[in-house]
């Protein structure tokens, strides 16, 4: 099996899994869900590191890779932190008074 055929199977299974998992998320948490999945899509940081870190890369590759590392990291950090900041606010009724 060619590597991209294997990749297509992985993609198909992961997409179905994503559908099944997200369908169960209550509308209450749709905003945090979106910022979380936004942070996960910043997995592009992996590609950015691979491109930037290779030896015998051209200047163009270096510059593009460097900008990509910044953008993807920004996306990771902002995505996770804002998700956590939002989720911290969700409380049930009558939290035990200290």
């Amino acid at each position, binding site marked *: 099996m060619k590597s991209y055929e294997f990749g297509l199977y992985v993609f198909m299974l992961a997409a179905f899994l994503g559908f099944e998992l997200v369908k169960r998320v209550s509308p209450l948490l749709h905003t945090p869900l979106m910022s979380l999945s936004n942070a996960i899509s910043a*997995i592009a940081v992996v590609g950015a590191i691979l491109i930037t870190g290779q030896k015998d890369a051209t200047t163009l590759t270096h510059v593009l890779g460097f900008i990509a590392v910044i953008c993807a990291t920004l*996306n990771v950090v902002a995505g996770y932190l804002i998700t956590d900041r939002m989720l911290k*606010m969700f409380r049930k009724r009558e939290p035990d008074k200290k």
Partner: protein
Amino acid sequence: MIENVLPGIYLLASVGFILAVKWMNNPATARRGVIIGEIGMLLAVIGTLLRPEVVEYRWILIGLAIGSAIGAPLAYLMPMTAVPQLTALSHAFGALASALIGTAAFYKNEVPLGFPMGALVLETLLGFLTTTASIIAFAKLQELMPTRPMTYKGQNVVSLSILAGAIVIGGWMVVSPGPAWAFPAFIALAMLFGIMLVIPIGGADMPTVIALLNSYAGVAAAAMGFVLNNQLLIIAGALNGSAGLILSIIMCKAMNRSFTNVLFGAFGQLATGAAATAAQRPVRSATPDEAAAILDSARSVIVIPGYGMAVAQAQHKIRELYDALTKRGIDVKFAIHPVAGRMPGHMNVLLAEADIPYDRLLEMDEINGDFPNTDVALVIGANDVVNPLARTDKTSPIYGTPILDADRAHTVMVIKRSMSPGFAGIDNELYYMNNTLMLFGDAKNFVAGIVKELAGSH
């Protein structure tokens, strides 16, 4: 040795992402989900840095530091009402990263024609168009640009021709190494299409568009996985792609519209004619002390927040009202329409910020049956989502849209700045009903007025 460990690290990172999405289904486990997602991302980064082909670390580490230094304050300093903008901006950066990596891979001339090049074309197309589209969405949400849909004659033809041009050049690059101008032209068309895609979208359709852009960013990352032959990218991208897609489908259903209608329909423009013909009809209005008296004698109240609440920043005053009423033994619930606000779940986040317990926030299907037994429905900054015309008037553009049945409550009170029609540009039948009281004023000030009355009368 290290080559044997690396696939394990990537596998664990994938598990982290899957659990992160899974644990989002419940507020009790959601924060755990964020932590496991962060661990997954950390593993992915470490696993990549350790790969033998990564030899040059300086620029990577500087990039990681700069990205964190900008991202962290952005996430902490933005007010909660700005979450939709921040999400749009974050999409833009993630998509730009995918697009630039695709570009770098293209100019390395190592990507073979055929399937791998096809994946690269898809990655750069979605990457660049999501970047510009997200920037326009950000500008509209931040009100740097008019939030009204901007339309002109033949708009759809122009937009679709641009997309077709990009696809033709992209298809050409898949089968043959075209001329030097092909790739820059392809990028330019992709970016232009991104702009054209969002310019005609109005504020109320933003939830669908943001969800859709989220999905594109995910698919771009997955396509990158095919270019780089990296399964972790494919899994994370596919998870995100399907999450964004399913959210935008939910948003479309909540508006009773199709994707094509949202993207190419320019809804706000169609209906303006109907609004102009609406005659001046009598309405009943009330002052804060009258409203306070009605609420005081009620046993059950359902609050229906909309985007107007976010604009007026009224959520903290609403919390005070909630406290005052709950103290009197009045049952207060919140009815949240799926598309209320500017992104999916927007209202829930704002009310949670104001410390309103989340088990009081009910979605449409859960709460609609309660309205006939409710004394007061208090509408704050919502309009089209409570318009009974959606049930009755077959000629109305919003006919068939699922709405909150506020009109079935014994008394309806609507806080609104003026009688101007909502986003859909349609007169709201709810305002003219015999059991409706219009409370004219700024949402925050009006609610503050009611709270003051309630405090005084006790």
